[in-house]
């Protein structure tokens, strides 16, 4: 059987099927004013801004950037939303608290490993601090700590709002989060002492991974229960992303951890099927869900094209799962597999453009709102980073580009553009919005939010530019056979130092954020107007 022909035909059939599927789900596909997009607003609420992270003055300024609202929001609906928020407050708080803790661990571990790359004799006496381990601790603290805890915490908080019901089974989520984090602490400890399964993204031993499976299922259960108790007919776009991600991740993790099944090169293809899908089918959809909720919510305007988001979702679901093979371009794997992954990587441009266009059209004419809304600043910047990192990723998969960038720091910079520039920034924005609702208190020091934003934005810009440059110089030096290998190391050194400076600024920003989070959780700091500024209605709640 001619495999390329087989692949080509199955690809064409699948894409046709995909578009037929999308067509079958449409409801007024060309209707620019889809009712679905308005599900997140109560009647009379469109045109009304919502930004719990802004001060009273900021909120008024923010409202001034909008056209006047059309009327008073429906009081019953707002009351129901308060009840929804109350039902999710505790589990969301627990998950977000864990997330902030792991963010600090990951930042310190990441900064340490970054410094070690240009100071190789620094702290070499301790095995657990050696580059190979502390770098892995950094990755796992992000991949299984910060990112999923923040994303799931935000998902738990959004889900009852989106379904206009209460969160069912919140206790499961709290217990699940505790189990998951015990597992993660043990897993990180294992890596520190050198017990690990030996595959990138899958280092934490499978025996410990059982805790992730059980804990993760317990966090997911309330979301499923709540989905079944929904009081809305229409499932908003954020719900599609969250629902799918919650079912995707367990399959990925369990298949990857099946013992005594994977071997040699097949294990490598599985490794990158997992490694890329945990980004593409877990963190990405959960973060996109947050963008699709918070962006329109803050500016009080439904997303521009609801159908574009439908196309974006199903194309992502279809193409993203198969891109992982681009991590093995030029490797000892079947040629057809690499080709398939390159094709799907390029196809990813479709959902990315659909999303970006939608975000831009929704924001158009409202960019002044960025000045007044901390949530929006993080979320919009994060959304832009999604576009950049995805387009970059598509081109990075091409053989010609990959030949230069593969095996270099360029890939690391790209990974951070996705997981930091996109996922992390969006999560910061979401947390700034949600926390005042969760603890019924304002952020005590609004200036700290600005400090956080500028530290991480500038820090990350330095980080990304430095590391990308390092990777390109390294890649070109390595392809030049007339240069000794050590030349490819030497050229990166100043840029690796630049990366440490950027990383240090980001870490400072995270310290400011964590301190602010802690003060808020402990009800410290000045109170301006209490919970009252949240919404006129909240006074009675």
């Amino acid at each position: 059987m001619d495999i390329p022909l087989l692949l080509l035909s199955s690809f064409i059939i699948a894409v046709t099927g995909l578009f037929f599927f999308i067509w079958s789900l449409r409801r007024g596909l060309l209707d620019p004013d889809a009712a679905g997009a308005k599900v997140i607003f109560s009647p009379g609420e469109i045109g009304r801004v919502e930004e719990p992270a802004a001060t009273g003055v900021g909120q008024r300024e923010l409202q001034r950037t909008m056209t006047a609202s059309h009327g008073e929001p429906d009081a019953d609906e707002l009351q129901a939303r308060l009840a929804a928020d109350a039902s999710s407050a505790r589990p969301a708080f627990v998950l977000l608290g864990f997330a902030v803790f792991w963010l600090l661990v990951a930042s310190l571990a990441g900064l340490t490993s970054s410094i070690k790359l240009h100071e190789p004799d620094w702290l070499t006496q301790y095995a657990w601090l050696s580059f190979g381990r502390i770098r892995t601790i950094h990755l796992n603290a992000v991949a299984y700590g910060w990112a999923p805890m923040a994303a799931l915490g935000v998902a738990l908080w959004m889900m009852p709002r989106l379904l206009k019901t209460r969160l069912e089974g919140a206790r499961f989520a709290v217990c699940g989060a505790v189990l998951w984090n015990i597992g993660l602490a043990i897993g990180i400890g294992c890596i520190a002492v050198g017990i690990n399964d030996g595959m990138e993204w899958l280092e934490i031993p499978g025996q410990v991974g059982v805790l992730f499976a059980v804990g993760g299922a317990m966090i997911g259960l309330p979301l499923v229960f709540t989905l079944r108790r929904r009081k809305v007919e229409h499932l908003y776009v954020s719900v599609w992303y969250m629902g799918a991600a919650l079912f995707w991740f367990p399959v990925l993790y369990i298949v990857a951890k099946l013992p005594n099944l994977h071997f040699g090169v097949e294990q490598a293809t599985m490794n990158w099927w997992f490694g890329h899908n945990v980004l593409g089918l877990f963190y990405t959809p959960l973060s996109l869900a947050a963008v699709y909720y918070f962006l329109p919510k803050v500016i009080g305007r439904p997303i521009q094209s609801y159908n574009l988001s439908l196309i974006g979702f199903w194309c992502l679901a279809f193409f993203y799962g198969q891109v992982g093979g681009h991590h093995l371009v030029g490797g000892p794997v079947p040629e057809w597999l690499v080709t398939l992954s390159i094709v799907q990587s390029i196809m990813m441009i479709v959902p990315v453009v659909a999303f970006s266009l939608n975000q831009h059209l929704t924001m158009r004419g409202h960019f002044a709102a960025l000045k007044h809304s901390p949530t929006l600043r993080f979320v919009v910047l994060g959304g832009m980073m999604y576009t950049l990192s995805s387009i970059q990723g598509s081109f990075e998969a091409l053989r010609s580009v990959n030949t230069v960038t593969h095996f270099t720091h360029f890939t690391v910079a790209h990974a951070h553009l996705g997981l930091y520039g996109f996922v992390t920034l969006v999560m910061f924005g979401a947390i700034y919005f949600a926390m005042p609702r969760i603890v019924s208190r304002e952020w005590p020091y609004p200036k700290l939010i600005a400090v956080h934003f500028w530290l991480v934005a500038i820090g990350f810009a330095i980080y990304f530019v430095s590391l990308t440059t390092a990777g390109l110089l390294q890649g070109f030096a390595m392809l030049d056979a007339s240069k000794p290998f050590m030349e490819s190391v030497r050229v990166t050194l100043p840029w690796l130092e630049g990366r440490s400076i950027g990383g240090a600024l980001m870490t400072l920003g995270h310290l400011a954020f964590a301190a602010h989070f802690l003060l808020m959780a402990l009800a410290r700091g000045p109170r301006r107007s209490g919970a009252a500024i949240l919404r006129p209605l909240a006074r009675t709640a």
Partner: protein
Amino acid sequence: MENHVKLISGAMVTLAIATASLVVLPYLQLRHEPPTPGLKPYTEVQLRGRQEYIRQGCVYCHSQQPRDPSQAPDDKRGWGRPSVAGDYYYDRPHLLGTMRTGPDLLNIGARQPSPDWQLGHLYQPRAYTPGSIMPAYPFLFEVKSEAGPGDKVVALPPQFAPAGGVVVATQEAQDLVAYLLSLDRTFPALAPLADASPASK
């Protein structure tokens, strides 16, 4: 979209397609791939050393997959011929790697066959490769005032040797070196199968 069953089943179908193409098909295609002739199973010491390689996270800076000369000059750097699936017959877990912060190691045993060089380089990479950014692994060694019977003393250039003592390799360091020396795929690969060859034009 109104139907959550349709949503979840659609999502699972797309994942099933991805899993079939990136996991199941490679599994079926490569399951019967024989080891490359000349490839020997790892000995027990080498396997322990391989575990040490994993414990220390060597894989995060060193790949084990030389590319085809048409793509990159890996062969000119002495990293070896492009590898094929059969070269990894005994590898569980795989250690193909994704970074070349340091050089490819699939043939390090052929390139640097001296155990003394390997041990000294692990103790202090900069003693052998000026400008190297590889971490030193002092915790894999012991500094003793004098070597005991059976101790593996590491020969070091004088300026890197500790004053008044000898550096002795622990069992872990010796295992790791045994594994590194076993990395030698200089025997020829079989004529690659039409669909299983590395990127060759």
